[in-house]
């Protein structure tokens, strides 16, 4: 097992190196650069002034030198400095990550909380009216675009309840109550689709497991139904669900950008998107590299969880 983990960790290095080369190159392929963005469309500067600005933001060196410098800094744990705000990318990430991480974690937890019982319930009552209802709820959750749901929640809370949470983000440590109010609508908007997927996944996995011999054996030896479900069925049905959850959390870290924008919560996804607009290379490179790192780690954890839920799986 430890050898397997070590191998996966070593594999991280070429993966992340590949990603960094790809992002670095793709950003340079984009037309325009940060100095052109600073100048905008209404004015023009002399070549001397432009040269000063390129020097000021550190884009005066040849591209391969820029890449090697950046890579060297990354190896020392320094993700560079934003070309627009001159803030270290790690500082920006640390400002943004709590927002995105909280949205991702709360959305995932909330969706599990609703989806797992509903999925089991649906599987147990297969083809019944309740199953149909859960099925419809799942379809609706999947079909609703999250930006639409987010906008509707904004409308409902402001028009009917005349309520909005405090506009500027507050961390849970500063004020938990205010923070949870701020999280309410983003989490609901994001959870709808997540819970639909997990619910359907749980249902189909459970159905498959419930038809197997060991479940019949468990029931035959007189085990209580609750025990059969929790200890035997759910644990075995969890493997594909864990895969989906791993991908979902990874997706949420970068993919909640629309929700972040609708609610004005400046998370990591928004940071990267804005970095692309502004041609702020270090922000995009650092942000993507960080997300890739987290994504790979989450997938590793998901793989290790397989071994926990299914002892037949052995990693060598």
């Amino acid at each position: 097992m430890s050898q397997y983990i070590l191998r996966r960790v070593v594999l991280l290095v070429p993966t992340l190196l590949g990603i960094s080369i790809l992002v670095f190159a793709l950003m340079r392929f984009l037309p325009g650069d940060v100095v052109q963005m600073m100048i905008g469309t209404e004015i023009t500067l002399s070549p001397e002034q432009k040269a000063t600005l390129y020097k000021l933001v550190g884009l005066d060196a040849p591209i391969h030198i820029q890449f090697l410098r950046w890579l060297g800094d990354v190896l020392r744990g320094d993700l560079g400095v934003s070309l627009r705000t001159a803030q270290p990318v790690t500082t920006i990430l640390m400002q943004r990550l709590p927002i995105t991480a909280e949205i991702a974690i709360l959305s995932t937890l909330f969706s599990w909380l609703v989806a797992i019982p509903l999925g089991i319930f649906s599987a147990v009552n297969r083809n019944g009216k309740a199953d149909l209802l859960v099925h419809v709820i799942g379809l609706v959750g999947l079909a609703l675009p999250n930006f639409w749901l987010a906008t509707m929640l904004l409308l409902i809370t402001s028009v009917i309840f005349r309520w909005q949470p405090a506009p500027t983000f507050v961390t849970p440590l500063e004020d938990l109550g205010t923070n949870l109010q701020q999280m309410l609508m983003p989490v609901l908007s994001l959870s709808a689709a997540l819970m639909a997927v997990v619910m359907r996944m749980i249902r189909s996995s459970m159905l498959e497991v419930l038809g197997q011999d060991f479940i019949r054996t468990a029931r035959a030896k007189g085990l209580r139904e609750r025990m059969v479900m929790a200890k035997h069925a759910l644990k075995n049905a969890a493997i594909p669900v864990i895969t989906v959850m791993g991908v979902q959390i990874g997706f949420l870290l970068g993919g909640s950008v629309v929700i972040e924008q609708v609610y004005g919560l400046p998370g990591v996804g928004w940071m990267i998107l804005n970095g692309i607009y502004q041609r702020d290379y270090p922000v995009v490179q650092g942000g993507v590299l960080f997300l890739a790192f987290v994504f790979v780690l989450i997938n590793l954890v998901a793989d290790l969880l397989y071994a926990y839920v299914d002892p037949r799986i052995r990693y060598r």
Partner: protein
Amino acid sequence: MSQHDSQGKLYSDLNSGRISRRDFFKGAAALGLSITAAQLLAACGPSAATSVPGAQQQPATTAPSGPKPGGVSTWAAETDPVALNPITNSNFSSTQGFEHCYESLTAFDSKLNVVPALAESWTTPDDKTYIFKLRQGVKFHDGSEFTADDVKYTFDIVLDPKGPAIWRGNFDQVDKVEVVDKNTVKFTTKAPFPPLLGAFAILRSSAILKKGAMENTKLETTINGTGPYKLVEYVPKSHVKLARNADYWGKPLPYLNEVTFKVMEEEEQRIAGLRSKTIDYAFLTADGAARLKDEKGLAINRGPRAYLYSFVINCLRKPWSDKRVRQAVSLATDRQEFIDKVFSGQATMAGPIATGFGDWFIPEADLKAKWYKTDLDKAKSLLKDAGVPQGQEMDLMMTAFNQNFAGLAVVFKDQMAKIGINVKIRTVEQGVFIKEGAQDVWNYDMNGNAFTARHDPDGYVYNGIHSKSPTNPGYKNPTLDDLLDKARTTIDSGQRHTMYRQIQEILLDDPKNIWLCNDQVIEGTQTYLKGYSQSFYTYRSWGLKNAWLDKTS
């Protein structure tokens, strides 16, 4: 009588009502004062040095009991400032981010008059010399004293031909800046330069920095200015938090203790914030305002806005290099249809100078009567004369500067189809737009653009139009060049007005761009927010420093 005495008599005559404002301007011109200086004097009178301009100019919005100091307020910022360095950023949202904290020698009041700021007064011994007497006892936010050295330091950076000042062009006629003494600074220009006072006020590469600030501080996210508010923190894409500067020279302004500009790029969020009263101010679109019209406790304020929508023509490409073709395009452009369909009627037709910009623009009625009558037959005949075939393609490059541009492109395509021009709309990302539209690339036939705040009429009609302007793709009109050169160095206001009228008429007869309209500043404020006034430029510094909360009303 010396010039100084003559000026003094002029102010006292105006103040005592012995002469009209019009006569005052005539007299000022005769004394060789620039229009902006004259406006300043008219606005402030001889007591300007000690009074706070604007505090007396807001009687309509001030409750009988007078402004109440204190309170905390949250305002929506519709765009993120991106960075707060006042020297190296051209984006308007950046100025909106730092305008409450930095000041220059002059400022604009809510009526676009140039009023004293860090300079309490100035004299112009000749057409090329401005001597500014600086306000004494002004402190930077770090507690250090403001002196002439700081002015010299800032403008040495701005005037450096190899320096990083994005808006250096606003000061290209300034030859040198000299410190006369601790509180006096002298600007010498290469030629008579009437736009100078406005160039300070517009805060584009003109905010006064503390000596050494460029080298020693992170200007992108921190501010050490002299303005009414101190920057507490700027978190990009999140908020700009400001605290009242208790040492502000313009006491009792500002009134609010703490103001946060929360970045809310989605209008839906701004509307929800106004409805729930979690924010006190928000910029709105016409559609957004319509949705809030019946909302209790909310005021919707409207006024013309310095945001001039236009289609910019690349005159280096055929057939657009032909004057007759450009005229045909203009004749086939139905501006009213743009206003109705894209702006829900909330916009005003405009010529080369935005409608509402002082008294420099051609009024809408004149535009409609002479230049903006749609005439498809004449347009078709002009195209025929120019040998333009039916189905001529036009590469129209667009980007989403805001939600209106997509609509502009569609309406334009439809209108041009009526004269046989096949508009191919090419929508690109903003970075691509800037790259493709840059000097010497000019990869478009026409592009959809908008001109933002200008401090002088010259700003609307020189750049991109004069044959020597580096942003001009191939447009040449020697008569116009000559007039443009003369107008920017003429001090006499009357003469300047005549010249800029002629310039605009030439441009409408021989179009360089297809100017459409400027939209409106539409702002929603809670009715308990008093003292705020709108700005044509959508600057909010004047409005904010005069704003106060009357929560009991």
